[in-house]
């Protein structure tokens, strides 16, 4: 609590000279300026851009960049370990990850591991919040995180960076961008390794260093754009990664010998064609991933391989100045071979969608309707639908009422895991209703708020059966409601500040523990970011994050204490030279906390980083 008060005091000092974070402006950029079409992005709307331009963001993981968003919560097992996301109190499989327009998820688990994404690969990072993400279809009801590599103009083509941290971590990155002419490309290579042997407090009160927690990765990505004509372009993106990690012992394990390795390759080719009233985008995607999990102590050596092919066509058509239509089709094919399946398993998902957007003439009102039927192997047709009314005026701000239906398909593990897989599972279904309001005030103050309510049914849960193993079942109905508040302010060109708060109540309806908050779902999240440019060469960033109690068991007999974390970064850039040095201290107040029960988290750590552009 003492550390929390200190940050509040600092925040109060800074508050008198604030400006909005430019990167948080709503992304309403049109695709090509010279065209009549003026609707938001081709697929998806209303996403917020997360700033990747600051030096500090280059030395952190994607999870650290996103964690500062008050509506994003990561269930994280510690440095080097896996990390899954939750937005607005959702489950991890309700947040879509979109890479260059393609929805990616591990088909076995239905989720993504965000610890395997490097910010250095990306040129744009956006978040589509609840009410803005439904167009991505099943598995996007709570939000979407959009990773893009679209090439931006650069003054210097080569960027080199290197970093060290007190987690015995070393990493380096090189990116080369050629942004001139009709052929543009950006290639990035990154490698890193860390011992992650931080000091932690054991249950008996003694201190020791974490054992068997090393991680290492190499990452290569490439993005090319070819613009043969002004109204069309091709792109090719490829992303490969190899990631090895040791699984550290929990606080109640004497030792661990488990380790996990992942290797994946993802690629997408896109063709984009534009006429005066029409955009066409065609994408073809192929991804392969191999995952191996070994634990000699329990004689486990499991290999999982999965492939994913996708083909999609997206259109945006403006037949009338007040009327937009987005429509398209998508085919998605998963196949997986796993030591835990009997033979190869596959799933085919075919869908089409139509999204109608109508601006009422003479009124600041916009009506939006969307429907997306989807047919999945072995399942009945499922529908994702949405209706929105937006009222936007400068004096009142931007109001939006929305209602949508979304679903989450059973994963391959749910259907086929041996033992226990249940091929009769139905998809989880969600209905979400909400109200959002955004407004820009005088003196560079912006605010946004979202109220929402969700009904869910058929939640899939693995339960013990009478054959001696667990089986997934459509067991529960859930409810959640909450509010998210964001405030941005800047004074002058030098100080920017942002704060967000989220309240979520999420509970299961048909249980003995009725209305207990769901496990690992904090009711309160608060975050704060302040950036101060001290003259031109110095940038100081201060971040604070509060996470309230998380319950470990459904009946709340066990819980993890709330915690407050504070991080601070200082970046110095040489005068007249594009070379910067950064120092970041995470967990400044050395808080003792756990993200997952019995998984120790690091105390205060120092990170050093340098970036040079040539």
């Amino acid at each position, binding site marked *: 609590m003492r550390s929390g008060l200190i940050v509040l005091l600092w925040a109060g000092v800074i508050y008198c000279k604030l400006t909005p974070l430019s990167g948080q402006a709503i992304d309403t950029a049109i695709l090509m300026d010279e065209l009549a079409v003026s609707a938001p992005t081709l697929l998806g709307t209303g996403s917020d851009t997360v700033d990747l331009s600051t030096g500090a963001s280059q030395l952190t993981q994607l999870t650290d960049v996103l964690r500062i968003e008050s509506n994003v919560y990561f269930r994280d097992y510690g440095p080097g370990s896996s990390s899954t996301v939750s937005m607005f109190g959702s489950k991890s499989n309700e947040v879509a990850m979109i890479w260059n327009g393609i929805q990616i998820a591990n088909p076995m688990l239905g989720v993504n591991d965000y610890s395997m994404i490097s910010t250095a690969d990306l040129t744009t990072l956006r978040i589509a919040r609840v009410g803005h993400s439904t167009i991505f279809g099943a598995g996007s009801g709570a939000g979407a995180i959009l990773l893009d590599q679209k090439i931006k103009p650069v003054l210097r083509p080569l960027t080199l960076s290197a970093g060290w941290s007190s987690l015995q971590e070393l990493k380096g990155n090189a990116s080369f961008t050629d942004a001139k002419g009709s052929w543009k490309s950006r290639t990035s290579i990154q490698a890193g390794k860390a011992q992650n042997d931080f000091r932690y407090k054991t249950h008996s009160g003694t201190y020791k260093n974490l054992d068997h927690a090393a991680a290492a990765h190499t990452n290569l990505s490439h993005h090319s754009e070819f613009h043969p004509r002004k109204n069309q372009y091709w792109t090719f993106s490829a992303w490969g990664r190899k990631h090895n990690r040791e699984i550290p012992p929990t606080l*109640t*394990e*004497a030792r661990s010998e488990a380790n996990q390795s992942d290797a994946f390759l993802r690629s997408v080719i896109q063709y984009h064609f534009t006429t005066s009233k029409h955009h066409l985008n065609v994408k073809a995607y192929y991804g392969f991933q191999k995952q191996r999990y070994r634990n000699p102590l329990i004689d486990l050596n499991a290999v999982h391989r999965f492939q994913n092919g996708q083909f999609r066509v997206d259109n945006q058509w403006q037949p009338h100045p007040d009327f937009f239509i987005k429509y398209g089709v998508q085919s998605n094919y998963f196949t997986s071979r796993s030591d835990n399946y009997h033979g190869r398993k596959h799933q085919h998902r075919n869908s089409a969608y139509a999204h109608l957007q109508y601006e009422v003439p003479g009124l600041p009102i916009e009506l939006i309707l969307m429907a997306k039927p989807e047919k999945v192997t072995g399942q009945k047709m499922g529908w994702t639908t949405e209706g929105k009314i937006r009222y936007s005026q400068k004096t009142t701000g931007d109001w939006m009422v929305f209602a949508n239906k979304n679903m989450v398909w059973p994963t391959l593990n749910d259907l086929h895991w041996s033992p226990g897989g249940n091929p009769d599972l139905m998809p989880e279904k969600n209905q979400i209703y909400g109200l959002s309001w955004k407004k820009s005030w005088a003196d560079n103050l912006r605010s946004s708020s979202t109220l929402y309510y969700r009904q869910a049914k058929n939640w899939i849960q693995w339960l*013990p059966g009478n054959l001696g193993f667990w089986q997934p079942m459509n067991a529960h109905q859930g409810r959640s409601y909450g509010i998210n508040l964001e405030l941005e302010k800047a004074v002058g060109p030098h100080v920017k500040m942002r704060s967000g708060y989220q309240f979520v109540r999420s509970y299961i309806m048909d249980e003995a*523990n009725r209305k207990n908050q769901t496990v690992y779902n904090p009711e309160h999240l608060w975050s704060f970011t302040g950036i101060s440019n001290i003259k031109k060469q110095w940038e100081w960033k201060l971040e604070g994050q509060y996470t309230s109690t998380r319950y470990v068991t459904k009946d709340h007999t066990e819980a993890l204490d709330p915690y407050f974390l504070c991080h601070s970064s200082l970046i110095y850039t040489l005068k007249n030279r594009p070379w910067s040095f950064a120092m970041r201290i995470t967990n400044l107040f050395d808080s003792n906390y756990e993200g997952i029960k019995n998984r120790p988290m690091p105390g205060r750590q120092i990170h050093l980083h340098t970036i040079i552009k040539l």
Partner: protein
Amino acid sequence: MKNLFLFIAFFTGFIFLSSCEKEEPEQPDQIDSFEDGVIISCEGAFGQGNAVVYFLDPAKQAYVPEIYRTVNQEPAGDVLQSITFENDNAYLVMNNSGQIIQATEKTFEKTGSIEGLSAPTEIDIEDGQGYIGSLYSQHILVADMNSLQVNDSIFLGEQSNRIFEDDNRLWILSQSDYQGRVKDHIYVINLTDHSVDSVKVGSHPTDWAIGDNDELYVYCRGNETGESPSIHAINTESPSTTQQVELAAPGGFFTKIAYDERENRVLIPLEDGIYAYQPGDNSISSTALINLDQITALYGLGVSPDDGDIYVGDAKDFNSAGVVAIYTSTGEAKGALQVGIGPNNFYFD
């Protein structure tokens, strides 16, 4: 001994084990030892390190929750598979923590541990030697119980879920791997020369109960393609199967069994209730002794040798507190007690 004061401070009340008749409540006596009563092991949720041990004193109608954690000010670990009592010590077999904790039986104060084990399941101690089963290893580890060091191993060739030493023989129940080779034997190791023999039982031996008069009752769950579950009575002296009884239950049905030494019967939970098997009979009781309508997931079963009370551990969904339901020897509900996650075993003293 100072830790005794700690757990006394953790009294949370007492339960009524008597009938519904209203009686004047009595002040509970203080519990100053864990020797006389029922030890309830709750294995906890896998991976969460929240295994706990409860102590119930039926005579005083009082219980003490989480005795190990309270006394030692640290959690016991992850997945408490079983507890063995020997020479005034309790040995807590922490399966997913890979260790066995030694604690005094009277106070549950930790006095040592055997570490570096591979998913231990059970330990049986004889003549200062601890024989340790493993969920994955094909060896039985042998530990010197004075130094708490593993100093030998015996090759079995199978993993070992349950072990039991009797008359210089080590009996091992090894469950089948899921959809792997169907096992239909239990194994016996001669501890003099480490030779391994086996006794034929039904498909998929799952659990056993140790009876009086050198009898071992093995529950085999059969399979879903036609073989019914069965009980096999084995004489450990000969050793040979003395009786085999098929059960009217769906093949593959997973359950736990317990021996009731007061009534000389084996209790067998099936889908709708707990049935009794009297050794020598050709079938189990025609009606259920205890109806299981109120039990969500039966995970532990035990019978008190003192009063014949039957203890049922209900694991619910393995993510909430479990419940121990207590019945009289004739199957009448007597009381219930909320305990930790996954109550799996009862130990009576």
